[in-house]
């Protein structure tokens, strides 16, 4: 760790979105030549923090000091000029440009005329420095995500960054690729760059970070040198409350096995996934982002069908090639990505609630029974305690928690037999979270088989009858309710020890 002066100091940063408190008085110091990991649960405020650093958001309060000078950043171009660059889990590349161009396109200082040869040579040099075997003249579109990320790092180096923010860069990478990435990170560190590393896999954080900062619910919890902290402590700090804070799944009988999955696999994504879910059972899926849980769900929902293995519903082998197939069998999937895949936000609450069940309200001449629609929507709005001015209010005007509930209402309206919930409480406030947990329990009671995917470990543990731990596309353990402890599940999911 460096003794030198801090390169970047964030002090007393606060940021609110409407009623949601994203960051509250957070301070952070980055030294040149260190890898500083920021960890925390989803919604802890990590993304907001880096968005403030790169000028995408402006802080409500607090200040940012770069190399001793107070700075304000209002867009990412300014951030770049100041030597702050960011790399995201999904690389922001230009697919139609070559690798070399992707690296140099944002440069202001390279003259008006592009010297292709020099640029290619320089790019090759940069890539070689990072030990990346990428042809600089190739189109970026044809690279793997890992290579695209390498290109982004090369770009950051080329910009002479002083602070490099890496936002879950390993999320989409294989173990081998992660190793390569870490080599690159280390060589960057050696050249004196301060690296802000945001990661979910604690194993990786311990491997790469010099210091670790924990954020929780928008607050700064701790900053500790890596060698002075253990995984257990870290998890405790991240979760911050006892598992007993959560709604606990009540005991109840589990009925017939409705869904049986045998050796399900999809080339390069997940393999040999087998499990069963019974009526009224909640099967939790724990694991890190990128462990392949969503991909299994998408295979069950027919979006991205599996290429090996079998799926049985009620003992009958089925083929699921589209969401329509899945819905016809009573399988519903609540997506983790509310805005892109879950809701039609300019539409009314009613329209969103009935979106997946239009057929039910359609008369023989194709008209919608709007009274029945509104009745059902009203029922669900009341049941789920969705706060909305009216049933015809566009969903875009609701808060995140109420949007999430609306999405849940949409799937409940399907009357599913099997409900897959993917991060059902991500990014919503505590109150809404408790509501959602209550509903999940009610649903299970009513006999629905539930697959609960969540990166929120305490949530999984509290809610599930059994817990599946996934890592790198494979199931690493299935734990009964009494065996499922934080440590055991985390160990299986993170892969240490």
């Amino acid at each position, binding site marked *: 760790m460096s003794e030198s002066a801090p390169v970047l100091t964030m002090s007393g940063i606060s940021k609110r979105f409407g009623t949601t408190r994203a960051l509250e008085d957070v301070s952070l110091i980055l030294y040149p030549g260190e890898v500083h990991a920021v960890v925390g649960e989803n919604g802890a405020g990590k993304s907001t923090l880096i968005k403030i650093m790169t000028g995408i958001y402006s802080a409500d309060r607090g200040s940012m000091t770069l190399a001793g000078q107070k700075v304000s950043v209002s867009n990412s171009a300014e951030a770049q000029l100041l030597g702050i660059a960011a790399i995201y889990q999904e690389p922001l590349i230009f697919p139609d440009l070559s690798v070399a161009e992707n690296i140099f396109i944002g440069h202001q200082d390279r003259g008006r005329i592009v010297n292709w040869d020099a640029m290619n040579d320089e790019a090759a040099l940069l890539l070689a420095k990072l030990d990346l075997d990428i042809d600089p003249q190739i189109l970026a579109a044809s690279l793997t995500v890992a290579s695209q990320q390498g290109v982004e790092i090369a770009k950051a180096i080329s910009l002479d960054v002083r602070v490099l923010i890496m936002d879950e860069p390993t999320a989409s990478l294989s173990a081998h690729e992660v190793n390569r990435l870490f080599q690159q990170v280390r060589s960057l560190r050696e050249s004196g760059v301060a690296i802000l590393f945001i990661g979910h896999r604690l194993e990786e954080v311990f491997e790469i970070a010099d210091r670790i900062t924990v954020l929780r619910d928008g607050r700064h919890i701790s900053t500790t040198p890596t060698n002075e902290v253990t995984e257990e402590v870290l998890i405790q700090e991240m979760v911050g409350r006892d598992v007993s804070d959560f709604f606990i799944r009540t005991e109840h009988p589990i009925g017939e096995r409705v869904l049986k999955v045998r050796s399900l696999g999809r080339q390069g994504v997940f393999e040999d996934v087998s499990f069963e879910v019974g009526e009224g059972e909640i099967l939790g899926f724990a694991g890190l982002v990128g462990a392949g849980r969503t991909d299994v769900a998408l295979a069950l929902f027919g979006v991205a069908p599996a290429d090996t293995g079998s799926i049985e519903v009620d003992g009958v082998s089925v083929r699921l090639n589209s969401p329509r197939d899945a819905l016809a069998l009573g399988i519903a999937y609540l997506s983790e990505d509310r805005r892109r895949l879950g809701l039609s936000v300019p539409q009314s609450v009613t329209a969103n609630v009935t979106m*997946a069940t239009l057929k039910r309200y359609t008369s023989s001449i194709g008209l919608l029974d709007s009274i029945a629609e509104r009745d059902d929507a009203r029922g669900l709005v009341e049941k789920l305690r969705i706060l909305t001015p009216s049933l015809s209010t566009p969903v875009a005007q609701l808060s995140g928690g109420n949007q999430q509930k609306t999405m849940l209402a949409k799937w409940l309206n399907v009357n599913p037999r099997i409900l897959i919930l993917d991060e059902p409480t991500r990014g919503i406030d505590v109150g809404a979270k408790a509501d959602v947990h209550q509903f999940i329990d009610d649903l299970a009671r009513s006999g629905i088989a539930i697959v609960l995917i969540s990166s929120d470990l305490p949530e999984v543990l509290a809610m599930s009858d059994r817990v599946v731990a996934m890592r790198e596309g494979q199931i690493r353990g299935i734990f009964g309710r009494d065996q499922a402890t934080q440590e055991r599940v985390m160990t299986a999911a993170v892969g240490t020890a």
Partner: protein
Amino acid sequence: MSDWLSRHRWEAVLLVVLVVTIIGNAALSPFYLGFGNFINLFWLSIEKIIVVVAMAFVIINGEIDLSVASVMGFSAAVMASMQVSGDIPFLLAVVFGILAGALAGLVQGLLIARIGLPSLVVTLAGLIGFRGAARVILEDRSIGDFPEWFDRLGQQPLLGPIPLALIIFFAILAVAWVVLERGSFGRKVYIIGNSADVARYSGIGVSGVKLRLFIVSGLTAGLAGVLFAARLGSVRGSLAEFFELDIITMVLLGGVSIFGGSGTMFGVVLAVFTVLNIRNGLGLANVDGIMQTGVVGLLLLGSVLVPNLIERRRTRLPAPEP
């Protein structure tokens, strides 16, 4: 009311423009306020506005159909050529003409919905290609001599002073309005227009909806082409040339987003009424055709620019004016 206003700001603006237009026209031209003129005002553009209704669906769905005017010409050409060949009853030729439009829509729809080509390019090719097909069929002929009942339907009032095409327009409009606002299909069109992914994840058959839309668009254009032939009493290869611009203009003016997902039939109807009234007013004021085109062009630009500017002001001002 304020709830309605907040969500239908554009319709409100159009309503004001329409009322101002009507008052202005009435003040400026003594001939404007007459029943005959109101019939005329619709009748003179009836084929265009029939297609406008279908186009509204296509654009709300996030696509575009540039080929409609050419398909109108194509359908009329098919009908006319069959009439000339004389082997089949004329009524059948009319049916085939309309079906030719649907077929044109089907071909384009397959390329868009199933193969995934962008509709802008496919229908641009259709715009050129189906016009070409009409010319191939008719060459330099101008085909008239349709049975008298056909001409009469096209040119004479059917119910009192109201001609058939007007009845068809209002019937289509009523159906379309109900389907878009109250129908399952209309709901799907909106959802897909917002996000095809959300629709797919909700079990909606996206490509099926798109395919049907383009068939309907072709069918409507076919019907409009045949109606136009009846009104004109004869068909040439250039029938309805360049109508697509007016048609798209009216839809966009109605507040339908070119990116899909938003817009209402009410807005489109208001835009249709506004454009027709402005054109009528300008016509009665003896304003030249090219000026009328320019005014509509300005209206199109203004219709998007003004709300954009208002939006920007609103975001800056703390409290919006009621």
